[in-house]
């Protein structure tokens, strides 16, 4: 398969993931499909437990023993990751897809120097051949993320939260990956540091023309840094489109509810909405549209049958009653 300029870097089709537990099978990810072009950034949003971290972990093939990939493919530059052997996956991790972890505080091993932990990744993937070159590279990365290269010789416990997050970003960049997944990259940090790191991450992404997937529950983060947005609910992607479009006119009631539950700093004054009820139990998700118990627009059909995909330009949603009357057509959209 040749990789043309226009082809997406990452293409996920029908990804379905289950966890087997003592209580039964958890349907963590159901038929998730999306794609990501080079240099583009995508935000996956949803409440906690909606399956967004499971999607991220599937992309890295970093799943616990009780996880089972039922079906689906993940194509990275035309290679199906899910069909690779464990050893092939290991080589490909970090080299092609790297990750900025959710828990930056604990993602650095406390007993090694921070620089050494970055060098470890560089050495493993043979990005540089000599120690001196590797150190030189780490110094460059540290400068790029706004850390003093001398900090390489320090241990994680000597770093502040923001510094650790920068170090983790440097680590993610260390092997020039095609895609970086940032899983709640800034939740543990205070707001000012959060904002600064996000801006820097965005400028680095644009500078290096990287593709980034942001996994977050924070709509403000998505609005600030992403080009496209995917909204997840109960393991399914319920709305997808350009960030600007989705923010201007969300189609899925859930998206609208999510957006209204976050205050907008710069935008117009509007009442803060709140989403009542709990996310559904994924052991036994509701029939029909999983959102119907919490949806203000739910009707009989929502309770009975799975919703169709409704498109509007580049934006689509899985809903029986999409918001706004400007729906162009029902049925499959042409995003993939």
């Amino acid at each position, binding site marked *: 398969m040749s990789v043309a300029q226009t082809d997406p870097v990452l293409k996920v089709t029908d990804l379905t993931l289950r966890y087997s537990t003592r209580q039964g099978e958890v349907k963590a990810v159901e038929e998730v499909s999306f794609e990501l072009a080079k240099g583009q950034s995508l935000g996956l949003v949803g409440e906690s437990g909606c399956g967004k971290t499971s999607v991220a972990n599937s992309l*890295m093939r*970093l799943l616990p023993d009780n996880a089972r990939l039922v079906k689906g493919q993940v194509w990275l530059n035309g290679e199906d990751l899910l069909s690779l052997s464990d050893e092939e996956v*290991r*080589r*490909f*991790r*970090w*080299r092609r897809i*790297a*990750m900025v*972890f*959710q*828990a930056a505080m*604990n*993602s*650095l*091993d*406390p*007993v090694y120097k921070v620089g050494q932990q970055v060098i*470890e*990744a560089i050495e*493993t*993937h043979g990005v540089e051949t000599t*120690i001196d070159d590797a150190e030189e590279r780490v110094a460059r990365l540290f400068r790029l993320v706004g850390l003093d290269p001398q900090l390489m010789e320090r*241990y994680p*416990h*000597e770093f502040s939260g923001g510094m650790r997050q920068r170090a983790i970003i440097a*680590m993610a960049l260390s092997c020039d990956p095609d895609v970086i997944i940032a899983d709640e990259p800034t939740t543990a940090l205070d707001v000012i540091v959060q904002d600064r790191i996000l801006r820097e991450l965005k400028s680095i992404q644009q500078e290096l023309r990287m593709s980034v997937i942001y996994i977050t529950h924070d709509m403000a983060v998505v609005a600030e840094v992403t080009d496209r947005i995917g909204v997840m609910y109960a393991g399914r992607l319920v709305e997808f489109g350009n960030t600007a479009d989705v923010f201007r006119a969300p189609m899925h009631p859930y998206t609208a509810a999510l957006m209204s539950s976050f205050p907008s700093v710069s935008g117009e004054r509007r009442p803060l909405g709140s989403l009542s009820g709990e996310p559904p139990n994924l052991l036994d998700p509701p029939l029909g549209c999983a959102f119907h118990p919490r949806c203000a627009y739910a009707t009989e059909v929502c309770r009975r049958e799975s919703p169709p995909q409704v498109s509007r330009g580049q934006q689509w949603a899985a809903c029986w009653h999409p918001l706004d009357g400007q729906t162009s057509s029902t049925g499959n959209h042409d995003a993939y």
Partner: protein
Amino acid sequence: MIGYLIRRMWQMALTLLLILTVTFLLVQAQPGDYASFYVLDPDLPTEVKEQMRATFGLDRPLWQQYLIHMRNTFTGNFGVSFGHFPRPVMEVLLERLPRTLVLFVTATGASFYIGFLLGKAIAWRRGGFLEYAATISGTTLFTVFTPAFALMMIWVFAFKLGWFPVGKFLDPLVWRGSDVTANSVFSLMLITALAFAVFAFWVLFALKRKGNTGMKRLSIPIILVAALAIPLVWALSGIGTLALDILKHMVLPIVTLTLISFAGTMLLTRNSMLETIREDYVMAARAKGLPEKQVRDRHAARNALLPVVTSLIYSLIFAIDGSVIVESVFSWPGTGMTLLEAVRSEDMPLVMGAIVFIGLFSLLAHVIVDILYVYLDPRIRYQ
């Protein structure tokens, strides 16, 4: 870091003081008075009685006896042994201490290494055959009735197979006609072993620091050459056969002590690993695409080592008790067997001396564990 160590040393000193006080009180608390019990013993020669009276201040008030007891302990004056009359207790103990040290240090070193290796392996692959086999055999060896197990080892390897001598420290037939004492040969062996260990560590560390891969590859051959040269030098020295005789007598006790004590470390490592495996940095290491072995050894196991080292003191204490039993079964004349003999023959000065030695020994183990911990955990090292 220095502050931490100083604080720990203070605690140790206090503990030592307490141990000495407790031993003094124990002697006082036993039925019958120390003085009447020993000094009025008709079997003891008069001069010993006089000497004891002087050494322990038996006719003085209790608090003065206590101070004398403390002074005597710190100056290493435990009096004269009844059983080894007229040798001083200190002399008997100093002769036997190195033998116990060798048994103890080698066996704990080996059992720690084996226990750690097995522990991390069974935590990494839970539920496998290895986990069942290692847990069952490990706990069986850990809880096995040690004397019976030691006797079984003797029976299998000394009687049936005849690979090793039955017990004791040396074979008189080999030593007949030689003009060197067992202790001088043994001391030379100890010095050699120590020098070799220091050399090997120096080679490994010095070459690792350089960061040059070519030199790194050289370190193993250099150590191997040294390891081969040592027996050669000994064989040519003329006392090689004598050293070999001692070595042969050492194998079985060391193997036995190792086997009964590795399971403690193994099970501890397993539990500790089960916790570190869930840590984010282990997930991160795997995400970085490191080979599984590297994730396990350099990240999960390296961090799991910290609590294991903290609890190492329990294993060391277990091994001290174990070495008393092993020494008595193998008739290995170390501190533990000395204690036992002294208890059996009611040689009280020697009993007191031996228990103080064993107490000091376990305190020293504490100190070493502390230093090791400080070395292993950068969060404490750079406080």
